[in-house]
């Protein structure tokens, strides 16, 4: 029981929003992005899309984990706004995006191997 509870408790996500210029909205994510925390991001993305920014930036510097449902949430903005850009992904998150072939789609500069 204890180890199961501890595992579930560890998954938490915080989403904060800032506006860089009139046309760019930045969503800063910290914590873990998975099936249990993704609804918070969905809400934030829908809210950002409704204001029709030119660019929607996801700052992932504080994000330690992301699973496929998290990628789905990022991708749900593609096409709905002018451009989607992922910023400061950790090495782990960057690999997930690259291996999914989504680096270009999510505006991630190619990594130097």
């Amino acid at each position, binding site marked *: *029981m204890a180890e199961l509870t501890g*595992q*579930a*408790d560890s998954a938490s996500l915080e989403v904060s929003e800032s506006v860089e210029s009139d046309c760019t909205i930045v969503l800063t994510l910290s914590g873990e992005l998975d099936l249990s925390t993704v609804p918070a991001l969905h809400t934030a993305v829908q809210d950002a899309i409704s204001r029709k920014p030119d660019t929607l930036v996801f700052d992932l510097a504080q994000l330690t984990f992301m*699973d*496929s449902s998290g990628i*789905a949430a990022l991708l*749900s903005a593609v096409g709905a706004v002018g451009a989607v850009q992922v910023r400061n992904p950790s090495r782990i998150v960057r690999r997930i995006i690259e291996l999914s072939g989504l680096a270009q*789609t999510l505006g991630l500069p190619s990594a130097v191997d």
Partner: protein
Amino acid sequence: MVDTVRRTRHMDDTDALPSGTHAPQSTRARPSLVPLSRFSLVLLVLVLLATGALSWSTYSLNQHNENRLLSLQTKQAATVLQAIIPVLQTPLASAAEIAATSNGDAAQFTNYIDSYISAPGGKGSYVSSSLWRVDGRGPHLITSVGRTPELLAHPAKEQAFLRRAAKTPAFDILGPLGTDEPRLGFAYASAGRPTYVVYAESALPPGRRAPSSPNSAFAELRFAMYLGRSTTPAALVEANTDQLPIHGHTARASVSFGSGVVTLVAARAGQLGGTLAQMLWWIVALVGVALAVTSAVVAERLQRRRRAAELLTVEVRHLLSEQRSIAETLQHALLPQRIPDIAGLDLAVRYIPGVDGIEIGGDWYDLIELDDQRVFFVVGDVSGRGVASGSVMASLLFAIRGFVSEGYDPAKVLDRLSALLDVGRDKHFATVVCGVADIGRHEITLASAGHLPPLLVRGQGDSAGEFVRLPTGPPIGVRYSEPHTAVTINVPPQATLLAYTDGLVERRGESLDVGLHELRTSALGSSGPLENMLSTIVDELAPPGSGWFDDDTAILGVRWQS
């Protein structure tokens, strides 16, 4: 959510599940004639019994106290009565002394005693007084002051009483005398010869009814005072109640009064020990009953709540097990039941439902026999979990089968598939790797839609395994104009291709590269048939019950037999 699901599932594993829902329903439907459960009823009765006992002991203690107080007060009142004696005796004693020294002079006697005589209800102690000379011939009246002595109406009593009084120089009492205006007679005799006896009569109150005085020793008592030890109506001196003899619990005290005895019989007129003591047993009873009812109600409520919770637990367990079996059944039904039997090719698959196996996963594999030389294989992963992911997975699985049957190659299959899903609309996307394995040509054609690269094991040895470098197209569901592209690679004899989903290699807090490296090491380290290789990989990378393995996983292996 995740926590709840896991915990509940843990319970399911340890406890036997009920075979049906009928047991709880029949329990609930049972009609109850008594509104209280047996426990609450017993509690109620016990507390009521305790209350009764406590109340009764309080009551009897109070009664005991009251009786003791009554006895004390009666004795006290009798003592007060004795204090009257000097008031009555002194004038008579003095008058007897005057008579003796003056040889029975009537004028001196009258002069002295007159101030003590008044009409009934007046200030004087007596209504009548007379001086007697008692010698060998008997009592002889010298003079009389005030009313005519009642004693004169009873010659026999007169003789006996005055002779007896003359014998000792003491205070003698007689009475009551008369009926219309009853009186008590008192006598005091002088010493020496001849003996002079001073006799006086005092009137009893009208109807022998004692005047009530709130501050007297008798205030809280119903009492009757008798001359002598008997309590006959004739002996009654006075009483403060009409109901005689005194009923209820009475106390009796007899005290000497001059040469005679006065008996006091008393009962409580009210509460002697204060109202609180009297009310206490009532208070105890009321509080006790309130306590009994409250505790029974609380016990009942707790019991009902517990019973409801127990029923709910059983129902929830049943529903969860039902849901899990539905999920498992669905998943089972969707994944191919039969692995194609193709000469020259080994095919093996695994599906592991992860810890949260209660929900349908989004991972799948598929194997489609194109002809006796070629097999089309698919491994895919729909983001998320649950029924929504499962239905997306099902539609993609069947769509691929349709496209394949129409003859599309892997890259085209993925292109066509992209039109079916939109992550913005459906909240899900899918990564898919698919390909065609050709037995005779020893080649494999692969296309990827955002999926992790398959592992190709060329044989034994550290350098024999590599992840296939292939252009990764966008996942299914992402709007993207670029078409998917396929690559065809040659494979040596006995080579193995492993396609898998991210659940196998993705770990929280770990780079994907670590998982990929472990997969490669595990695959290269295994020997024997393809089934063995898959078992080894699952055991090493996704041991069942390891807890941290929370995503579902699909693995597919293709091996050329020669």
